[in-house]
């Protein structure tokens, strides 16, 4: 379900433009309000829907399973760390969901700049930056060559 903007609710803060990983949320040059420039390219992550402080972004269901009359709306309450969804079907049925945004407090996850810079020798390592400690494990599992199928290596 790609997203769209109620332009009358949008206050043009640009948070959705910042957060859209597909770079399809843009600012209309006439009204200076956000809009989804390429609904076909929306990968439906709903980052913009959740980031919008005005609840101005909504999801438009595909016509085959969510015909006219349905509604999918989300309320993100950062101070409660919750995301609530309210799904209304065309026949009047309604489903409500509340999910935690995250399970750890804001600011408890270190940003990349807060880690020690990697050593030059790390370039030769198979591990990515901050592995394995960033994954909260002691070591990444490895597959010994002796366990590979014969002829593979």
């Amino acid at each position, binding site marked *: 379900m790609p997203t769209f903007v109620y332009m*009358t*609710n949008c*206050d*043009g*803060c*640009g*948070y959705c*433009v*910042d*957060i859209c990983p597909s770079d399809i949320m*843009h*600012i*209309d*040059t*006439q*009204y*200076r309000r956000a809009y989804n420039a390429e609904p076909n390219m929306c990968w439906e992550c709903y980052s913009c829907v959740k*980031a919008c*402080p*005005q*609840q101005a972004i909504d999801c438009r269901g595909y016509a085959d399973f969510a015909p006219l009359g349905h*509604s999918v*709306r*989300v*309320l993100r*309450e*950062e*101070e*409660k*760390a*919750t995301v*609530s*969804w*309210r799904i*209304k079907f065309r026949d009047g049925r309604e489903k*409500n969901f*509340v999910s935690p945004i995250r399970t750890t*407090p*804001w*600011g408890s996850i270190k940003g990349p700049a807060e880690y020690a810079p990697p050593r030059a020798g790390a370039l030769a390592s198979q591990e990515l930056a901050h592995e394995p400690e960033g994954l909260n494990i002691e070591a990444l599992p490895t597959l010994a060559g002796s366990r590979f199928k014969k002829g593979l290596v």
Partner: protein
Amino acid sequence: MHNPFAAISGSIPPLAMQIYVAAMFLLVVAGTLIDLAHKGSARYFFKHRRRANRGATRRVGAGETAALAAQTLVVSVLAAGEFCSFWRRATHLLTMYGFVLYVITTAVLVFVYPTAAAPGPAILPALWYAGAALVCAGGLWYWLLQRVDVVAEGNPRFRLVRADLFSLSLLASAACGLIWAPLQAAGDGLWAKVFFGLYLFSNTILFGSVPWSKFAHMFYKPAAALQRRIEEANGFRANLPAPADRPATFGSARRRPRNY
């Protein structure tokens, strides 16, 4: 501080100034009505309101509506509470209060104290200057540093689009007024005439471009803000989920991401 309209009353009759101000007022009224009819805003607004009333889960009484209207006036209008960004809110408040001061004092100076014989109390021109200065400060701050297409889209700072019509014409009106008024007080010279012409031109653009600019948002926004509060109170909430039944725990110390 001098009353600039009294200073120019030697060359332009007060009646002509009053007719011009009245014409600008009528242009705003006509422009707003044309905008309403063209965009269908009022039709959409009342259709949505009927839908909200049908979907209401509880009735909002007259007393509660009055309380919500007062809340809207204080929070959404006087304090520009709809803005989530502190700096955008600050620029809007500066420009808004500047504009209100600027327009009201202009009307009082033109209609009540238009002649050099009775230039009126000194506080009025001082407020006129202060209003124009606030408009310039807030308008420039907004236009150079806070515009979303510059901040979020990364567009060039001096790229003009139609959405700039209102803010730029308001900024031009206040800036030309601020330059013209002291020149006029110093004497009716060539530069005073040039900037008075620019002042009139920018005012005509500002008040005459209502159907194409964002001018009318100052009338629509309060109505929309009140309607949203009523929808929250009557349970319709525009299909939004009810607030989560969970206490605020984590606070919101997080900085919003800027991804460039």
